[in-house]
């Protein structure tokens, strides 16, 4: 009976971390999406632009997310001019640091996803649009973007799931999301198996709901094709 009570109490405590995790994911994925669009735009302007974006993507995808978080949270304080700048009130906060790191990181991955989607747009479709008299912007909005988004959706789904998992790293810079709360309960009670299993279960449910929702969206956007399960071995650690 006492054990059950402990489990229930732990569950409730961990549940209080869900809003933090969800807001971390939502804000960083949306910010990262805007950034990824910008990166894709820069990539298409010029050769140097393409190189710069490729370098960004290479650096962000080739190093662990944990290093990136530490660089922003601890690293930026090394510079006097940052500590005196107007950004410092934000960059001092673990929440904003986590958001910044996660957004910059997912932007690199999302830029790659977008690139894959854009590459899949048939040349003929674009030509046809131009022949019909659509301008560049209208072609992009009406033809290129819808095709690219459909193409990129499965990869996008797994990117969001990976981001849900990645937010657990925010606990290392003292944010109390699900993993952070779990860790503090474990260090108080030493009942690692129970606490961490419940935390894992919460993540599983969240990711399950997320993939289901995206699948729904996929089926709605691409009625002719059966939605495929994601099997990309990626993570950011």
């Amino acid at each position: 009976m006492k054990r059950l009570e402990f489990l229930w109490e732990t569950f409730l405590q961990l549940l209080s971390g869900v809003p933090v995790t969800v807001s971390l994911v939502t804000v960083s994925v949306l910010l990262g999406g805007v950034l990824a669009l910008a990166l894709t735009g820069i990539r298409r302007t010029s050769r140097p632009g393409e190189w710069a974006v490729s370098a960004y993507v290479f650096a962000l995808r080739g190093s662990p997310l944990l290093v990136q978080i530490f660089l922003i949270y601890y690293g930026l304080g090394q510079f006097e001019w940052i500590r005196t700048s107007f950004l410092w009130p934000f960059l001092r906060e673990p929440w904003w640091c986590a958001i910044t790191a996660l957004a910059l990181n997912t932007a690199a991955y999302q830029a790659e996803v977008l690139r894959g989607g854009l590459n899949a747009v048939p040349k003929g479709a674009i030509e046809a649009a131009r022949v019909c008299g659509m301008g560049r912007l209208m072609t992009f909005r009406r033809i290129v973007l819808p095709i690219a988004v459909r193409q990129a959706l499965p990869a996008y789904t797994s990117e969001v799931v990976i981001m849900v998992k990645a937010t657990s790293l925010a606990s290392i810079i003292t944010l109390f999301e699900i993993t952070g709360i779990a860790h503090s309960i474990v260090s108080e009670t030493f009942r690692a198996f129970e606490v961490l299993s419940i935390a894992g279960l919460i993540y599983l449910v969240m990711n399950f709901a997320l993939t289901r929702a995206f699948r729904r969206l996929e089926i709605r956007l691409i009625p002719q094709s059966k939605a495929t399960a994601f099997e990309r071995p990626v993570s950011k650690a």
Partner: protein
Amino acid sequence: MDGLLAYFTQVGFGPTGWGLPLLRAASMTVAVSLSAFGVGIVFGIFGCWAKLSRSVVAQGVATVYTTVLRGIPDLLVIYLLYFGGSQAIGMIARLLGHQGFFGLNGFVVGMMAVGIISGAYQTEVLRGAYLAIPKGELEAARVAGMGRLLMLRRIVAPQTLRFALPGMGNVWQLILKESALISVVGLIEIMNQTRLAVGRTGAAFSFYITGAILFLVITTMSGAVFRRAEAWAMRGMGGRVKS
């Protein structure tokens, strides 16, 4: 310019430089990643075998394994193995009449945790590779009178490995990055060594950027190795390997 000079003195190999500890930490990262890769392959082989077997139970177990480990954060798995492992050992020790908290070896915990996680990805890679073997080859082997074991050794294993190499390269990159998380259980790899250096010198940006560069160097170099391996494995296949 002065700043740059100070930076290179700090991460260099001089008497006040952290070059040697950082290099040692980098080799620890590679060592623990390699061990985890090995563990992951073992888990992957069992997972793949279970998923392809006719037994519903084995299939179910393997599906649960891959779903759970790809659905929960890696950090949670490391904590579970570290604290859970200590909890289990503590329980056994109490039965034997010992008291206190038992810490586990960071290398072993990290190797097992990252190995088990990557095994879930490896399972899918190996399964995909096995299914890519043309059915005719297996039939031909059977017709030629090969037994199951001989067929595994001569046809299935080499062909699976060939098709699995690109996916295995991805898993290796993932393991390398994941190895940074092992720093939370106290292993002195790149992340932890840079953290120690930051604690001593206060130069947080300098050392964390150095850590990031070390990771980039390792991922780039091993990427080149995997490309070479792919080219070698695909030799004589009429340029089916890209990139």
